[in-house]
């Protein structure tokens, strides 16, 4: 019960702190409770250990005045000297030790004023215990400074860690989202229904080809569905999937589509993320060859050089749109697909992977993915 009220109070206090904008004042307010506790400890020390003869209340007022003076001097001068940039530990201690005696005298004067004591007599009285007091103030300042300094470092470290965490979370989220969108885009209803329509027609016109088409559709569906769950796939299975896809499209497009697939045997077992190459092939069909009157050729190849795997999709279709700039990110579906590919590559390989689109000659587009090879 007591614990929970304390926790509630702390929570409320922190809530209130969060409403204050980040500034010097906020720092001071944040550190205030700690300062007050240290001042109470000093009071007890002076009254019962040093025994200067003054009352507990009087010592408490003086302790607060001296503590506050030291604190404000150290913080104020520190802020003036270093602004927001944190100083080195040594510089901060040096500052604390130099400011402590000044704070001591200043605090004593404030105390004297508060109790309407003559300032000189108070200073004279204090001077009897001067060494004890100055030493005490210095020790306390350094200890307090150390604790405050650590606190600052801690809060800053926590802030940095939280920022980093948020950034990672957002990257992860983006990657997940990109992946999700890719998966949703995978088996397009349009593609599926068009294929089924062709199959429906072929069954009565050419049953053998219908059989073949059905078999390829099954390969395509199975591979697409299992690939969307896997973390890695081999180039061989990715190329099988692409082969099935292109076979289906070739039946649909008839003589308008020619395709070549080139996967060197030694690269067959190479691992790549699934659904990376296929969306690019689908884009080449959808935006390059399908809308082209005379169709064209699509060539898919893989090669390896200096530990870098290069996947290339080359088509002779319509080519990149007017004003196309490779880096632009637009609310355009085809480019959204490209953004997805880039985001996934970045999430997986950071800047060691790349995806580029450039014009093919005389017509069409060349899409290239380069990724570092495992090991």
């Amino acid at each position: 019960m007591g614990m929970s009220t304390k926790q509630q109070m702390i929570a409320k206090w922190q809530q209130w702190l969060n409403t204050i904008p980040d500034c010097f004042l906020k720092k001071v307010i944040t550190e205030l409770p700690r300062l007050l506790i240290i001042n109470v400890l000093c009071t007890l020390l002076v009254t019962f250990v040093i025994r200067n003869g003054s009352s507990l209340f009087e010592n408490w007022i003086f302790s607060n005045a001296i503590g506050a003076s030291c604190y404000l001097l150290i913080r104020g001068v520190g802020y003036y000297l270093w602004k927001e940039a944190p100083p080195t530990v040594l510089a901060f201690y040096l500052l604390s030790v130099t400011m402590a005696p000044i704070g001591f005298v200043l605090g004593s004067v404030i105390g004297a004023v508060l109790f309407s004591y003559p300032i000189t007599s108070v200073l004279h009285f204090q001077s009897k215990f001067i060494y004890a007091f100055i030493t005490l103030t210095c020790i306390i300042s350094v200890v307090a400074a150390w604790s405050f300094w650590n606190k600052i470092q801690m809060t800053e470290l926590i802030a940095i860690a939280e920022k980093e965490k948020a950034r990672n979370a957002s990257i992860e989220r983006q990657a997940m989202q990109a992946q999700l969108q890719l998966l949703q885009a995978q088996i397009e209803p349009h593609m599926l229904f068009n294929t089924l329509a062709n199959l429906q027609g072929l069954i009565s016109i050419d049953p053998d080809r219908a059989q073949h088409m059905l078999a390829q559709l099954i390969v395509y569906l199975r591979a697409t569905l299992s690939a969307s769950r896997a973390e890695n796939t081999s180039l061989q299975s990715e190329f099988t999937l692409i082969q099935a896809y292109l076979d289906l499209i070739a039946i649909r497009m008839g003589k308008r589509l020619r395709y070549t697939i080139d996967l060197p045997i030694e690269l067959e077992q190479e691992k790549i993320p699934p659904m990376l190459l296929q969306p690019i092939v689908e884009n080449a069909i959808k935006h390059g060859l399908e809308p082209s009157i005379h169709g064209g050729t699509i060539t898919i190849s893989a090669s390896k050089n200096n530990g870098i795997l290069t996947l290339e999709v080359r088509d002779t279709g319509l080519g990149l749109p007017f004003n196309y700039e490779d880096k632009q990110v637009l609310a355009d579906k085809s480019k959204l697909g490209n953004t997805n590919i880039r985001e996934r590559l970045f999430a997986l390989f950071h800047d060691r992977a790349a995806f580029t689109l450039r014009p093919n000659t005389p017509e069409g587009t060349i899409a290239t993915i380069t990724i570092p090879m495992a090991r």
Partner: protein
Amino acid sequence: MELTTSMSTQHRPINALIAEDEPILSATLQRMLNKLWPELDLSCVVENGFEAVQSALTSMPDVLFLDINMPGKTGLEVAQELAEEWPIDKAFPLIVYVTAYDEFAVKAFETCAADYILKPVSEARLQKTVQRLQSHFQTRTPNVQQPDTGTDLERVITQLRELQQLARPTLTGHPVMPTEKLAVIRAAVGNNIRMIPIEDVIYFEATDKYINVVTAEHSSLIRSSLRELLPQLDPHLFWQIHRSTVVHIKQVKMAHKDEAGKITLTLKNSDDKLSVSRVYAHLFKQM
């Protein structure tokens, strides 16, 4: 069925055009139509949007089966071009759009009551379409002799306008283009790039693969299509007035309407005259 038989004995058979780029689908549709409507003349079968327009304008069919996603021109673009070019003394054909599964397209077709069939085509569904077409020809004598009262054409134009607004990206088969507007047109002139501020453009005229950008001083070609360019222009300033013309509206001096109802624009800084197609004539009604 009795009805069609009696009709076909009185007139030359009703003829249809099929525009479908996928050969198997085209063959399938022909086979099904042969079965459901044996009297229908299916001699006009084409594989892309360009051929569809050419073939329709030469053979003047009574029915068009237009695939939406075709190379060259989409089914909607074909319909628009035909609506612009169709001779006024001939009845405008009935259009049936054919599309693979696409919920936006279906919604759009339903909203503006355009006839459509979905791929894979079910025989029962096609039967309904055939019946609808047949009953239409029952009330309207097909072919030449009778000039269109304009109702069919008007209906198609209204439908087209609605369809274009409802589902441009899906129906035209092209992705939504950038919303960022062009400030300057960069046109290659020999080895130089001519920078044309967009406000200097009087009009754009599309040819096969190029767009002619006309200013008061010169005209320059850019390699693009209106389909790509239009989304990058401010729709308040640049009005499409024809499938191949986009005019800077502040450059228009006057819209002149002749006896046949044809609208021609005269311009402020050019002697060129631009004709407004039927599809866009509504833009120039008085306020």
